C-alpha cells in the first residue's frame, strides 16, 4: 500500500502580496486624488499653476522683507529695486496698530493684561469641563477689564459691581415667589444702588500714575475692534434672548414691538446705524448728557447684533419639539419657569453655532467704525499711518497685517464653534 500522506497541505496562509505599485502608496493616492479623470488632471494642473504664481509672487517678497527702516523711501533704498516687503512699518507702528495712536504708551500693559485675562474669563464659558467656580472670575471680568482699560478710580467699577451683586441677591431672595418680582426688583435694586452710589463715590478721574484715566476716544487700533466685538456680543446676548422670546410671545403688542425692532435692524446696513450713532444719536439724548462716541457706537452695534442673535435663538426655539413646551405646561410650570428651566437651555444649545457665526460676523463688522472716523485697526491704517509722510504707499504690509489678525481671531472662533458643534451633537446619525 502506498502510504497516503498528503503531499502538500499548507498549514498557514500565504502572505499577502504587496499591491502593484500603481495601486498603492503615493502613486495610487496621486492617481485617485489628482489625476482620476482627464478633467480632474486639467484642474490639478491649473491649481498647481495658480499656487505657483501666488507663491512666486509672495514668497520672495516676504523673504526680502525689511524690518528696520525709518520710512518707505529708506526701505526702497535698501531693497534697491528688488521686490521686497517693508515690514519696518509694522515694526515702527505696531503699537499704533494695536492700541491706536492716542493711548498712552506707558499704559499699554493695561489693555494687554485685560486681553490676557479675557482668555481666563472666557475659558469657563467656552469649555464646559473646567471647574464651574471659574465662572466667578468671568462675572468679575467686565469690571476688571473696564478698570484696566479706562483706568481712573476703582470706585466706579466697584459701585457697578455692588449694584449688580445687590440686584443678584434680591433676585435670589424673591425669584422663588415670583420671577417677575425677582427680575424687575433686581433691576430696580441695582439702579437704586447706582443712583445713590453716584452721589457718594468720589469723581472718577485720575490724572496721574499707573491707573490714570484714559478717554474713550483715545482708544484705537485692534484693541478697539476687540473691545467693540466682545462688549457688543456679550451685551446683545441677553437682549437677543429677550427679543426672541418676545417674538414668540402670544401677546400681540409685545410680539409686534419685537418683530418691528428685529426686522428694522436687520433691514438696514450696519453702516447706516453707525451714521445714526455718529450724527443722529446725540440729538436723542437729553440736552447736556453728551454721551461719547464710543458708547453711542456700542449702543448701535449692540442693537444690531441683538437683532441677529434674536433670529438665531428664535430658530432654536422653533426647532424644539412641541412636546417640550407641553411637558413644561403639564408640570404646572409658569412661563418664566418653563423658559428658564426647560426651553431656553435646550434652545440655546441648538443656537450656539449660529450665535458664534453672528459673533464672528459682528467682530468683522467692527471695522466699519473706521468709516465714521474712529481709529480702529483699519482706521489707523487708512488715516494716520498711510497719511504720514514716511509711510505713504505701504499698503500690502499693513492690510496684510490687518487681514492676518482678523483671520487668526475669526478662524480660531469658527474652529471652536465646529468643535463645540461636534461636542454637542447628541443625536445619532
Amino acid at each position, binding site marked *: 500500500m502506498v502510504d497516503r500522506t498528503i503531499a502538500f497541505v499548507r498549514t498557514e496562509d500565504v502572505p499577502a502580496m504587496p499591491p502593484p505599485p500603481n495601486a498603492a502608496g503615493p502613486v495610487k493616492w496621486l492617481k485617485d486624488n*489628482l489625476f482620476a479623470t482627464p478633467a480632474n488632471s486639467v484642474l490639478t494642473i491649473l491649481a498647481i499653476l495658480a499656487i505657483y504664481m501666488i507663491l512666486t509672487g509672495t514668497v520672495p517678497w516676504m523673504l526680502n522683507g525689511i524690518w528696520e527702516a525709518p520710512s518707505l523711501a529708506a526701505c526702497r533704498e535698501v531693497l534697491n529695486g528688488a521686490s521686497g516687503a517693508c515690514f519696518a512699518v509694522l515694526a515702527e507702528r505696531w503699537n499704533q496698530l494695536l492700541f491706536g495712536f492716542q493711548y498712552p504708551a506707558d499704559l499699554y500693559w493695561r489693555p494687554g493684561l485685560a486681553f490676557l485675562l479675557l482668555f481666563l474669563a472666557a475659558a469657563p464659558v467656552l469649555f464646559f469641563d473646567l471647574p464651574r467656580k471659574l465662572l466667578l472670575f468671568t462675572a468679575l471680568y467686565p469690571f476688571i477689564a473696564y478698570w484696566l482699560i479706562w483706568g481712573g478710580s476703582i470706585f466706579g467699577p466697584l459701585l457697578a459691581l455692588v449694584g449688580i451683586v445687590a440686584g443678584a441677591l434680591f433676585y435670589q431672595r424673591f425669584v422663588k415667589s415670583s420671577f417677575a418680582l425677582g427680575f424687575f426688583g433686581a433691576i430696580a435694586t441695582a439702579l437704586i444702588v447706582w443712583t445713590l452710589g453716584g452721589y457718594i463715590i468720589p469723581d472718577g478721574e485720575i490724572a496721574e500714575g499707573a491707573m490714570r484715566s484714559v478717554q474713550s476716544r483715545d482708544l484705537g487700533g485692534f484693541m478697539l475692534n476687540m473691545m467693540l466685538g466682545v462688549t457688543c456680543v456679550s451685551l446683545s446676548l441677553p437682549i437677543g434672548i429677550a427679543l426672541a422670546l418676545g417674538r414668540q410671545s402670544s401677546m400681540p403688542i409685545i410680539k409686534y414691538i419685537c418683530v418691528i425692532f428685529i426686522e428694522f435692524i436687520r*433691514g438696514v*446696513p450696519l453702516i447706516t446705524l453707525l451714521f*445714526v450713532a455718529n450724527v443722529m444719536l446725540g440729538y436723542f439724548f437729553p440736552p447736556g448728557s453728551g454721551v461719547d462716541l464710543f458708547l453711542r457706537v456700542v449702543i448701535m452695534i449692540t442693537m444690531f447684533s441683538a437683532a441677529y442673535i434674536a433670529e438665531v435663538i428664535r430658530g432654536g426655539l422653533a426647532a424644539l419639539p412641541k412636546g417640550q413646551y407641553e411637558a413644561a405646561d403639564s408640570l404646572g410650570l409658569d412661563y418664566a419657569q418653563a423658559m428658564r428651566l426647560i426651553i431656553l437651555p435646550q434652545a440655546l444649545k441648538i443656537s450656539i453655532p449660529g450665535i458664534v457665526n453672528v459673533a464672528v460676523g459682528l467682530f468683522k463688522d467692527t471695522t466699519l467704525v473706521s*468709516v465714521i472716523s474712529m481709529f480702529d485697526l483699519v482706521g489707523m491704517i487708512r488715516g494716520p499711518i498711510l497719511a504720514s509722510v514716511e509711510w505713504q504707499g505701504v499698503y500690502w504690509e499693513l*492690510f496684510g497685517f490687518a*487681514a492676518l489678525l482678523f483671520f487668526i481671531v475669526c478662524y480660531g472662533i469658527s474652529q471652536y464653534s465646529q468643535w463645540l458643534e461636534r461636542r454637542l451633537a447628541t443625536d445619532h446619525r
Partner: protein
Amino acid sequence: MTSITDPPRGSFQLSMLINDTRYRSYTFQAIAFIVLALSIGFLINNLFTNLAAQGLDINFGFLGAPAGYDINQRLIEYTSQSTNLQAAFVGILNTLLVAFLACVTATIFGVLAGVLRLSNNWLVRKLMAIYVEIFRNIPVLIWILIIFTIMIAVLPGPREFRGDDPAATMFLGISAFTNRGVYIPLPYFERGFGGGLDFLMMLVVLVGSFFGARAVTARATRIQEATGERPATLLTNLAIWFGPVIAIFLIFGLRFEVPELKGFNFAGGIKVGGPLIAIWFALSIYTGAFIAENVRAGIQAVSKGQTEAAGALGIRPGRIMSLVVLPQALRVIIPPLISNYLNITKNSSLAILVGYADVTATLGGITLNQTGRAIECILLLMLFYLTISLLISAVINVYNNAIKLKER
C-alpha cells in the same frame, strides 16, 4: 395655559390683573406699551428740544434744491443742476446695479467653489477650502480696500498707453484695462435704427429664440414620454438660438466701436468704471465664499441614499446631479442664498470706500455733507434699505411657502 377647568367667574378685582392669567397678559402688554410710548416720547422730545436749542428743524425741502455736484456714473440723466432727489435716484440705481451684478457673479463663484469643494481632486478641494476660509474670516471692508488697491496699483493708468513705446498696450488691440475702468468695444449696427431701437430689436429676437427653444424641448419631452425615445434637440436648438441673431447681424451690418485714447482718457466703446469693478468684484468674491458653504451644505444635506437609489435605477451620474440631487439641494440652498443676496445689497453701502456713487455715497454722503441735513438724509437712507430688505424677505417667504414639503 395651565388652567384647564373653567375658572370660577367672580367679580373682577384689581389684583386679578396680576394674578389671573386671563388678564395678566393684558397688564404686561399695557405696561410694555406704556414704557415703549414713554421711551419713544422721551427720545422724540429730546430730539426736538435739542434741535430747537440749536434753531434747527426737520425739513425735507432740500430734496428739491439743486444738488450742485457731479456724479461719475449715472444710469439716468443727471447734471450738477439736478436736484438732490435726482442725485439720490442716481445713487439708488447705482446701488441696485452693483447689487444685481454682484449677486449674479457671487452665485457663480459660490456654486463653482461649493461644487469644487466636494470634488474628488484633493488639491482643488483644499484650494477651495482655503479660499472659503480666507474670505469668510477677514472683514469685507479690508477686502474691498485690498481689491481696490490692487486694481489701482496693478492696472496701468491711461497715461501709460500713450507715446511711441507705451508701458501698456490694449488687450488684443480692442479693449483697454486701466485703473480707471475697463473699456471694451461697443457693438452697433451700421444700417440700424439707432441705439435704443436696435437694442429692443435684439431683445425681441432673443426672447423669440428662447420661446422657440423651449417649444422644441417641450416637444422632445412629449415624444420621450410617449415613446421612450428622446429625439436629439441640440442642433435644432443651436439653430434657433444663433440663426436669427446672425441673420440680423448680417442684414444690419454689425460693427464695433473700438475705444481709443483721446486726451486724458479713452473714448468710445463701453466703459465699465473702475470703482464699479472694484466693489462688484470685492462683493462677489467675498459673498461667493459664503455661498460656497451654503452650496456644499445643501448638496451634503441630500441623503446618500438618494444618489444610490438613482444609481440603482440606472440613471447616469450627470443626470443624477441635475435630476435628483440638485432639485433637493436647492430647497436647502436657496433660503440662505437669498439672505446672502440681502447681505450683498447691504454691504454695497461700503461703495464709498472705492468712490462708487451708490445711494450711501450720494444721499448719505455728499448730499448730507453739503446740506447738513443729517437726520433727514439718514432717515431716507434707512427707509430705502428697509424697503429693499422687506421686498427680498417677502420673496424668501413666498419661495419658502412654495417649496415647503407638502405633508399629508
